[in-house]
């Protein structure tokens, strides 16, 4: 199947996904479960990685700025910019594409190969709407909070690394964070997060829903889903940056 066919099939899938749920009570139950599975269960990894990467960003910046003419507050400024603009929305989304994307593809793919999706269709349920829409809404609603938490912990990790290593003072770091604060950068990061969240929910769902074969096919589809979601995040990141910041 060529790429154009996949793109066409992906959009046809989306058309079936965006329908009114057949039973709102069942839908809300599914939505809460997806928020737990796709969002809350990712909190730990995002908090852990954000804290340490934030620390590393601050340390690397401090180690590479050895000129006496450059103020130490620049470390906080650079760490803040790197974390808000790229690390939290993009890097964390790529991590989530791996963790959540493979989970989505394997769970939907297993439902496909074990005929659970056929069972839904026979009952008269729009299986795409039932399975995929709660995932899209869960990621779109929850990931901005997750990424915001990543930003906060990344910046905090930078401060902790400076204080513990003695490479820069906490006061200089905080001064850097407060310098030239532009709230649009936060909006830019959230816009990126929303688009990445949509990709993280829909691309793996597509790979899982249309899988053919058995367990090996599900495994291959999971790998493909992670690769394609990552590629699409990177490409859309480039275009979004050009559109919103230039």
């Amino acid at each position: 199947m060529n790429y154009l066919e996949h793109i066409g099939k992906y959009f046809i899938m989306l058309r079936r996904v965006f329908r009114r749920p057949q039973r709102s009570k069942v839908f809300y139950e599914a939505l809460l479960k997806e928020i737990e599975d796709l969002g809350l269960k990712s909190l730990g990894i995002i908090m852990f990685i954000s804290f340490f990467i934030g620390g590393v960003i601050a340390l690397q910046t401090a180690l590479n700025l050895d000129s006496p003419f450059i103020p130490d507050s620049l470390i906080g400024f650079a760490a803040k910019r790197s974390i808000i603009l790229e690390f939290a929305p993009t890097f964390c989304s790529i991590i989530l594409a791996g963790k959540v994307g493979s989970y989505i593809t394997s769970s939907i793919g297993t439902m496909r190969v074990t005929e659970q999706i056929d069972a839904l269709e026979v009952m008269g349920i729009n299986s795409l709407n039932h399975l995929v829409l709660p995932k899209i809404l869960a990621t779109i609603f929850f990931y901005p909070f997750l990424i915001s938490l990543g930003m906060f912990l990344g910046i905090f990790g930078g401060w902790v690394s400076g204080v513990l290593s003695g490479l820069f003072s906490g006061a200089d770091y905080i001064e850097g964070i407060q310098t030239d604060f532009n709230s649009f950068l936060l909006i830019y990061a959230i816009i990126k997060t929303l688009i990445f969240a949509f990709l993280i929910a829909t691309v793996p769902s597509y790979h899982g829903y249309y899988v053919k074969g058995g367990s090996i096919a599900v495994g291959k589809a999971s790998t493909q889903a992670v690769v394609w979601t990552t590629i699409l995040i990177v490409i859309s990141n480039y275009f979004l940056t050009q559109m919103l910041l230039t």
Partner: protein
Amino acid sequence: MIIVKNLKKGFGEVEVLKDISATFHPGKTSLIIGQSGSGKTVFLKSLIGLHTPEEGIISFDGRINTKFSEKEKQQWRQEIGMVFQGSALFDSQTVEDNVMFPLKMFTNQSHAEMLARVNFVLNRVNLENSNKKLPAELSGGMQKRVAIARAIVMNPKYLFCDEPNSGLDPQTAIVIDKLIQEITDEYKITTVINTHDMNSVMEIGEKIVFLKDGKKAWEGSSEEIFKTDNEAVVDFVYSSNLFKKVREAYLSGKK
């Protein structure tokens, strides 16, 4: 009553179903038999609307399923119960939730009413005290019984079963066969079963349609199948040594 007329279905260049016609009566257990690859599953999936036929008509009590509006299709779907080959239970849900799922989706019953109905059908398939178990905690036979319970919970008019005995030991297979037949008699359901299990043919086959290479090669009752001279049926039925000996004994007049 389900009437199938001149059904054709293919995938790309491969023609799988070639002009099949058949009639399935209410309150009777009809069996589709044939070797692997003969088109049984495609035929069954065409009946339940998972495959769209290229040509032909499938009529459910006079209603042609390819001409349904969205609303009619929805209504028709709720008249169908399906037992899949691998049971197709939702593995993240308990037995109770699996059976309750169609009720939650399509009725306005209270939780107590739904629970009463779930317990009734679980008792009907002889599965008490398993409500809170997950499908993975059940044996193959128990999973099949849950699948039957889920299929009948909405009081269907039509019940379809794809290889309900596959992967089961002979004793459990007989239990499942008997259960399907009892339910068919009790609720006057039109039941269509895909199988290649000759024991099922002997036990519950009131009407048998034999498929070979996507064509209907023979049609008759379970008594007639052992008397027919149709070469394709004889080859299929007597591929087992046990049935070969039964036939030899029958032809030589022994009991």
